């Protein structure tokens, strides 16, 4: 990747990376540091991105890095990472991601019952494991698992409906 291409990628996606980090950390300065770290990783090891949607990949890397910071880890994480690899051939470019509209996504999340939206938000932006979510909400683990799955499925249906041309 030459510097010009890298700069174009940065211009296109730094707000997403920063936004994810800010949502997780709630601190502008820490979010800037995470943004810097995410783009330096792309620059130094571009082969870590193995295809798919670059913005989505950067957002996942940002989320994982920010959660590491939140948990006070310097470098290696042992819990609660979003997989950064595609890993499976049948995961293809997705309409929901391709036609993303931020406000509609946030609206769809708000429209979920709280019993689903809260565990989803705690898991993704709070970096909490299923056990931590269950403990904090004082709800049985099995219930948390099914609520998260149902919530994500419902969110998916909402996004598909709003992504329709």
């Amino acid at each position, binding site marked *: 990747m*030459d510097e010009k291409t890298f700069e174009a990628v940065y211009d296109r996606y730094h707000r997403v990376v920063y936004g*994810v980090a800010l949502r997780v950390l709630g601190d502008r300065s820490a979010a800037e540091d995470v943004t810097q770290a995410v783009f330096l990783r792309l620059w130094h090891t571009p*082969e870590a991105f193995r295809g798919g949607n670059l913005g989505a990949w950067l957002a996942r890397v940002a989320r994982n890095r920010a959660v590491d910071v939140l948990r006070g880890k310097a470098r290696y994480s042992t819990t*609660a990472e979003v997989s950064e690899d595609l890993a499976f051939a049948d995961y293809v470019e997705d309409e929901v991601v391709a036609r993303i509209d*931020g406000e509609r996504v946030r609206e769809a999340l708000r429209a979920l019952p709280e019993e689903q939206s809260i565990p989803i938000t705690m898991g993704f932006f709070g970096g909490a494991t299923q056990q931590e979510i269950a403990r904090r909400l004082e709800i049985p683990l099995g219930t948390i698992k099914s609520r998260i799955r149902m919530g*994500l499925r419902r969110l998916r249906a909402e996004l598909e409906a709003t992504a329709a041309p």
Partner: protein
Amino acid sequence: MSDALDSHEEMLDLVALYALGSLGRAEAATVQGHLAECARCRAEYAMLRPTVDALALAEEAELDARTSARMKRRLKEAISPRTVTRRATIASIVAVAAVLVAMWLGATTVMLRGQLAAMRANEAKLTSELADIAAPDARRYAIAGGAIVRRGAHLYVVLNELGPPPPGRVYQLWTLARGAKAMTPSITLTTTGGSVVVGIPGAGPEVTAVAMSIEPPGGSAQPTTKPLFVRKLE
């Protein structure tokens, strides 16, 4: 039958948690293993993961122009050619030092031009290598701690956090040509460790495997230690 169904429902719940990033490493590894074998769970993952991606992408923040410019300036400073790689840094320091010595000695401007041309050529080579490695049509073969990357007639070994070789030893690369029975010695690496991106000279499409071993300085005609990796390129 019912138990099997219940257990699969539980796995589907875990797939959702995996997509969300709410599993520990061990649980995530279990789900990953299962996904490799189960088409139904793969379909669930393929549906839910982009949904989670959408949650992240929706967080795109408004940034004022001044903050945006400051962040970009900071990043550009960090990736300037002087700091692209240790190799580039050392090359630059050596080149600048040579220029200063040449000036002190009153050497001609031809010498200066030569040094600057060498610096530019080094930078151009690095840029070209990075472009190859990041190209969408490049093929990547995973190895522990990095990858072998093939693009057209170029072959690269990319290693992250490579430890220094034992004292008095060097890393040496090996290639296996199609139909050959023995590895052919390739270059030795002068690295003292860290991130390494190295092009294997003359490695055309006939190369079907790459290996790396630890050898005496100057390299060996055949590996004298067990290779650190042997990677087939097929």
